[in-house]
């Protein structure tokens, strides 16, 4: 699920689905998203592949930085949330 500010970069969609024959990592999921939506991919990760500082990804209700980062596993059918930090001024 994408925040509204990013939805224009995914053709207006709020939910993207990725085919999965089994568990996949968040990195693989983001690779799949970036292959279809290149600019969206650059918004979420920098060119080294690192998740941008104020981009938070939740799997099973936990932010992936508190799990295994981009190596966190996503099960088929599981929901992944992209939420931006509310930092700013």
């Amino acid at each position, binding site marked *: 699920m994408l925040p509204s500010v990013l939805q224009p970069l995914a053709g207006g969609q709020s939910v993207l689905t990725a085919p999965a024959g089994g568990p996949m990592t968040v990195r693989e999921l983001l690779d799949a998203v970036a292959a279809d939506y290149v*600019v969206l991919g*650059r*918004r979420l990760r920098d*060119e080294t592949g690192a998740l941008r500082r104020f981009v938070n990804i939740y799997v099973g209700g936990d932010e992936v930085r508190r799990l295994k980062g981009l190596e966190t596993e996503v099960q088929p059918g599981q929901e992944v949330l992209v939420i931006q930090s509310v*930092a*700013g001024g």
Partner: protein
Amino acid sequence: MVPMATAAKFLLAIGTKKGLWLATSKDRREWSLTGPHFLMSEIPSIGLDTRDGRTRIMVGISSPHWGSTVAHSDDLGATWTEPERGAITFPGDTGAALERVWQIYPDADSRPGVVWAGAQPISVWRSTDGGEHFELNRGLWDHPHRSEWGAGYGGAAAHSIVVHPDGETVHVAMSTGGVYRSLDGGTSWEPRNHGISAYFMPDPNPEFGQCVHKIAADAATDGRLYAQNHHGVYRTDDNADTWTSIAGGLPADFGFVMLAHPRRAGTAWVIPLKADGERIPPDGKLAVHRTDDAGETWTRFSAGLPEREYNSVLRDAAAVDAAEPAGVYFGTRGGSVYASADEGGTFMEVASHLPDVLCVRAAVVAGA
């Protein structure tokens, strides 16, 4: 110089901490303002490219959430294009990621399509397709001094690029690191800071490490450049081999801005600030200072500026246009933007209460 008979409009682009505003005018006195474009993204750099019979606006866009890139518009901001894979992306072997684009510099008329960029982390980039895709300058990226360059308050960046019409001589200024010069079009680089103080370092006269805030080239005197340093205003007449102080006559030798006249020898502008304990116009009185003799003497101009102003003016928040007489523009961190149609003699307020002004650029544009 742009012939006035065929010039339809002046364009002033204002990059702020929360978006881009565009102002247009037929006479540089009455301005029409549109914006914001890219609301909630910082616009720290703007390039106005009027070569080749078109007007291309290029903007560096930075979002703390979504990263940095460069977008461009060929219709005065009606529509914008962001190259899908990013105009500036670090090659994988560098292990680096773009943090901010500090400078967008269209090259000489004789090299249409060539645009330079300076970025954070400290890096210089060159495009040959009008700013749509840039290539990293490896000579500077692989420079052995890199590990000793530092970060100013705003970050570690190459913020000034000056390319000689010959295309071979290129000066870059970085904070902190100082001035570097290439004589082979950017293949190799040497520090050129002799005479510029770095009072904040153990050795106040190092080969490099200075915090040069901005450099500008004298358009009509070969080998002459001006520099506004972190304390100190300097001139070189030998292509940056040596620098001498031209701060005498200024109320403060600190500031961020350095502008050179687009055609006339010896004319440059600074906007002094008191520092380091303060970072405000001296005594809260904002003024632009102009020299017409390459820094031997300075004249203070404040007509049209507010009686009291406590905001500073950042290094790229000032610009000149190419008209005759030259226009001078600047914006404050308080969101006011001022324009002068008479080389600084008198100013008028173009905009007020905008977010912090990070960058302004002005040009005479045809049509529109």
